[in-house]
């Protein structure tokens, strides 16, 4: 494992279930991503993209292999240590937004900062929401926001702690084309402004084209790894 990579994973496997029901989802994935890169992860449904992201973001523990994320050895950490390791290091944007319904937009963005023990969490959250153009929606609840607005809040929530790594799982999957494009513009703008490394899962070739590097998965393996044209 070398320190210059934000993601340094080798021979990662993930198997779920046991006995006859055991399914091998990741079959020896190796991946190195340098700081500041933007990487698109393509592949058909069931190829293991989301699982790879889950393992790399510490949401799932790999069955075997070594995983270095921003200097931490994720393969050796337990569930709570992984949660702590995510604090401030990793931001995640999901297709279905997944905001906390009982909290306002401002509180949703402040949560990861508060969990990481950052001073002035609410000021930072407010600044981040203003940066994504939602300065006027601070006290609104998720149910009072449109899909596009909810995804902006999710992006602000992911980028507010200035993570080294930003994961996005089909961030425009639940949005119409126009809103989707605006969200992607925002995502890449925030990535540029924060200097985060981006790993984005997508089926959208246009999105893949905006990344510096494209990976393609099939049957739990990375079968193609090319620099974007």
């Amino acid at each position, binding site marked *: 494992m070398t320190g210059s990579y934000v993601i340094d994973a080798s021979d990662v496997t993930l198997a779920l279930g046991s006995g006859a029901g055991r399914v091998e989802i990741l079959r020896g994935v190796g991946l190195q991503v340098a700081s500041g890169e933007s990487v698109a992860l393509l592949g058909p449904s069931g190829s293991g993209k989301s699982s790879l992201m889950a393992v790399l973001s510490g*949401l799932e523990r790999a069955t075997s292999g070594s995983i270095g994320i921003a200097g931490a050895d994720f393969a050796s950490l337990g569930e709570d240590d992984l949660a702590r390791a995510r*604090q401030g290091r990793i931001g995640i944007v999901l297709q*279905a937004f*997944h905001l906390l319904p*009982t*909290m306002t937009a401002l*509180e949703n963005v402040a949560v990861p900062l508060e969990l990481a023990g950052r001073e002035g969490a609410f000021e930072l959250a407010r600044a981040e929401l203003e940066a994504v153009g939602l300065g006027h929606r601070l006290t609104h609840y998720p149910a009072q926001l449109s899909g596009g607005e909810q995804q902006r809040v999710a992006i602000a*929530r992911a980028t507010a702690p200035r993570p080294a790594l930003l994961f996005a799982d089909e961030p425009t999957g639940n949005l119409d084309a126009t809103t989707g494009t605006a969200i992607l513009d925002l995502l890449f703008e925030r990535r540029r402004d924060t200097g985060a490394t981006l790993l984005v899962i997508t089926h959208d070739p246009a999105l893949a084209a905006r990344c510096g590097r494209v990976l393609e998965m099939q049957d739990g393996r990375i079968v193609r790894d090319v620099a974007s044209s």
Partner: protein
Amino acid sequence: MSLPLRLALRDLRGGLAGLRLLAICLFLGVLALAGVGSLSAAIVASLAERGQEILGGDVQLTVAQREATEPELAAFSREGRISHITRMRAMAARLDGAESVLVELKGVDEAWPLYGSFRATPAARPRGLQVAVAPELAERLGVKVGERIRIGGAELEIAGLIAEEPDRVGQGFTLGSTALVDRSGLAATGLVQPGSLYSSAYRLKLPAGADPKAVAARLKKRFGASGWQVQDRTDGAPGTRRFIERLGQFLTLVGLTALIVAGIGVGNGVASYLDGKRGGIATLKLLGATSRTLFLSYLYQIGLVAAAATLAGLAAGALVPAAVVALAGDSLPVPPRLALYWPPLLASAAYGLLIAAVFALVPIARARTVPAATLFRGDLEPSRRPGWAVVPIVIVAAAAIAGLAIGTAREPAFAAGFIGSALGLVLILTLLGGLIRWIASRLPRPEHPVFRIALANLHRPGAQTGRLVVALGLGLTLFTTLAVIESNLAGQIRTTIPAKAPSFFMLDIPVEEIGRFRELARRSAPQGDLVTIPSLRGSVVAIGDRRVADMADIPPEAWFLRGDRGLTYSATLPEGSRIVEGRWWPADYSGSPLVSLDVEAARAVGLKVGDSLTVSILGREIEARIASLRAIDWDTMGFNFVIVFAPGTLESAPHSFMATISMPEAEERPFARAIANAFPSVSAIRVKEVVETVSGMLSQLVVAVRAAASVAILAGIAVLVGALAASRRARTYDSVILKMLGATRGRILAAQAAEFAALALVVSLVALALGSAAGWWVVVRIFELDWAPDWGTVAATLALGATVTLVLGLLGSLPALAARPARALRAL
């Protein structure tokens, strides 16, 4: 088969897991009611079935302080075969005088027992100077079979230990254990004297075909006026029967409260089951199903499960008497008669199904309004109103429950009050649940995000706070009320009564020996506070010119007209009494008979100063004029007589003295020994022993009441578990997102703990307030006792309830906490 029923059966193929809460809650509620009902019916049936044995005959005639006269005896013997039994309290002492114990002395003739059989070990019937004693009596005196004890003036050899005394239950509550002698043994004790407190019972074995009720009625008419109490075998132990019936009624009401809590679980279970079916309902509508078809289909499904749960509850409840027999065995004074008792089972089934209807109809009616468009728009529609059609049905079902409970109660007013209070409580708790949600939504938001979520969980849309407050609050309030009442009663019995009460009550002190008795008491208990008072038994036979025997309906407050009562005479106003009307007679009064009457008793039958009252003493009727009415402070624990005669009337009648004496505890045993040796005929009742006996009985009663009330708590727990299951999706979501954002399990668990601790705290405080208020009302208003609950016990009861809530809440949250984020996110 109709379409809705076909749809219902097809839907049920998917499993009943969703209706588990409904089934458990109904099962518990019906089990409690059916169990309580079956048990009390089984005991009452056993009393009725064994009526002859319990009464000791087909008909029993009892009279105080005398035996039957020749003409009376002749009249009795014309009806059937006679057995004569004499009962009185007496002291049994070791020959060395080291120990003496109060006993229930029973002198029987050769004909006894007319029904049932007497068994003793060794199998010997006491004859002459022999006695058969209850095993616990031999143990207390430290004597064995073959050894001798002293009762009154006789030394009696213990012939055997009593194993079965068929007419024991019919005698009701007695302070002492039985010592059984034959008539010559009784005569040898010398205790049956004119004026001593004994009762004579003549039991009749009627010829086959004779109607005991008719014979009893005939004898009552003829001899009722001369102080005879007549009972027939159809109600051999009326006191015990009334007690069992009252206890059964009370426990039924407690069970009904449990069923109301269970009903909330039923409502929750049905609502969350149907919530899971929204997709299916929308699809069926898309395919052309009408609201009516869907309503009927879900009504059938829920009806089938409710009926099955009710049947299971009935089956388990019907087994309760058998379970009690198996567990308690020989220690039961009246073994329940094992059989199926349909009236309580049918009533329980009706309660169960009606409760299911009250709580399930609204969610079913609401479910049919799910629009088909849900499939396209997502599930964002606010819950619709169930429609007015079901409201009258729900109201009718609720009224039917109240009607059934009140209609079948022995004391309808009490049942109505209880049900009214329970409904009031539900209303208060419902309002409170709403208030908690309202306050939680307006409280300043906690700084920490996980605690913000904890607070939000109390008021978020779909939060179960309201239902939990009602369900847990009702159970905990019931428990707190019982703890307040019980600790108050137990406290009075253990501390207040002994502090106020004298050390001994002494009975049957011969008039001619009262001087020697006072002298001995002064010598052997120098610090003792002795009060002596003349004592006779007599019955009121007429008020004014109305004969009591002819009065059709004697109100309960006029209890002094029933049976015989203690009478006394006094020159001075007794301690603890206050004249409220008329005047007390001069100390040297010696004119025509005057009485002073308790004011409450007098008012119950409309007597006032100047009216006359006729009392029968030992068969002689004395008419006396009411000179004054007194207010009696019954709390003084001394001698309180409803009827007190002026001097000059009763002194010449055969009578004895009673005495109370208070002394330091250390002097009690030597005093008891001295009295037993010098006055073998005097019965000394040690108050501490009575208190222990009563405490023991109270704790047995408490166990029964607690058992019934626990069902309310169990049902409350089922509601809690159901509420957690219903909110599991939301909790899992929160937990997973928080983990994604970096929260550890410990933090999330702390938030859950905060949420349930807040809920448990609020519910406990409410239960404390409402339970104490209800307890105060029962203790102070109904029992008219001092208000002195043991707050330690009450707090411990509440703390236990709150802890159970907290622990179960946390246990129920564990699945949400254990959800693996990556997998859960995929499923969300």
